[in-house]
């Protein structure tokens, strides 16, 4: 899956499922504020939607770009 396709799906998840309105308009490097519960939701989503191996995650996600990069680098 290309980076663009991953980003499109991640944005849809953040806006439609997590109701993060700003995710629809934010640039991929814009900082987004996710609390610890939201971080867990994102990890669960990445596992289910992309089969991402989240065990390698070192830092909490802070932007859409970070999420996309992590998915691309951590296929299960």
């Amino acid at each position: 899956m290309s980076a663009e396709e991953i980003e499109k799906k991640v944005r849809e998840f953040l806006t439609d499922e997590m109701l993060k309105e700003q995710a629809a308009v934010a640039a991929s490097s814009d900082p987004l504020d996710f609390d610890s519960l939201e971080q867990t939701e994102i990890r669960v989503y990445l596992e289910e939607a992309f089969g991402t191996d989240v065990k390698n995650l070192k830092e909490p996600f802070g932007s859409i770009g970070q999420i996309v990069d992590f998915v691309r680098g951590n296929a299960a």
Partner: protein
Amino acid sequence: MIIDRARIEDLWGKASTSGHVPLEAFPESFRVCLTQGDGLADHYAGRTPFLFADQRNNRILVLEKLAPGREPSVRVFDAINCTGGYGTGILGSQVSALEHDLVEALHHCATANDEFHTIERYELVTQIRRLIGAHTGTSPETWEISFTSTGTEAMDLAMQLVMLDGFDLGTGRNSRQERDVLIACHGAWHGWGLNPNQLLDRRQFTEGLPRLGQHRVVFMRYGDEASLREVFELHRGRIRGVFVEGILGDGGVVRGSESWWKALFELASTEDAKIVDDEILTGFRCGRLLAIPEQLTPDCVALGKAMGLGLFPLSAVLWRKDRLHLRPGIGVRTFNARPFQARVVSAGLALIEEQKLFERARVVGERVMAKLQDLARSYPAVFKGARGMGFFFGLELDGRYARKGHSVRNMFLRHGVLTEIESGLLGRQVPKQARINETIRLTPPLGIAESDLDEVIERMSRAAAVLASESPEP
């Protein structure tokens, strides 16, 4: 006390006009408490900026330090207490009517654990058995009872009763070993302990904590008959127990229909699975003892929160003598309804019966519900709907507030109503159409004046108008 009574009286005067007080007007210790909090660890990933200084007639004296950048001052206002703290305050400020019993208890009750019998505990046990017998259509003698402190402990004991069902301590054999499936509901909350944690389906709450080795927990959608039948069909012959709330509480104040409950009891009976009815949140406040329909008899009932009248933790586990058995040696707790607690709670339950507060909650609750539904219809940008039972109300949020329960709760408080937040059912474990947004919960005291309830609605309407016209706080 870090602030004297005269100053508190002064603040009540300010609260009537929602006044401001310069921060330096307070004594130093009180300033520290206001600005840095009361010192408790933050279990909430962010505690609120409010300090509750006093309560009278179900109104709390609230102080809020204004945001940095302004002149350091404190806003003082009153809020009608519609929670009692996680739904515990069924009597609200009416607990002062128990003053005589409280003083008597302090002077005369033995400080003793439940290895020894006491008159006070006998009276409380008799009351509760009578009430549960009346609700379930059984004899009071049907029921065994034990007390715990918190609801989490009560659910832990209920789980142990079910998981040990069939286990013979003498031989070490388990005659129901093949029963390895426990059923729980998506979005349910049964407490914050390692055992009850097994019954939660949200990984935000379970990730990083160990899972049960010998049992598997499967989830169904609360109130959904198709989901109920599917889960029973899929695990037929293996189902040991079903854990279900009287009303799905944290999942968004969702009621099960009479037909859903009937089907659940029929399926569990055929399967010989034990039903644990978790009424920790709903007991005593839905216009009757339990939220589940009358004349249904679960194998086990957990009662809590409200039993302590908002004053102290007290919960109870009741189970049918012919269906479940206490393992010798378990259930021992240092604080199992201390005589002091039993005396005060007995007096509280007697007050509820004398003043027919369950009946009142049914009648007045219907009127309040109609008004909350009007409120929800008036502000569709804020609310999706209102639902509940007796004096247990939920206002589901919508639109841009769907996941902004904290900012809505704070807005309600700033307009003078203390409410709470239910998480809803937002995860991907249920299909989109079955999801429930965050929900504001109101659990006013059973004896609160109707004029106060009218004021609650007025204040919430004003808050909703503001919410409808602005964006939520981040």
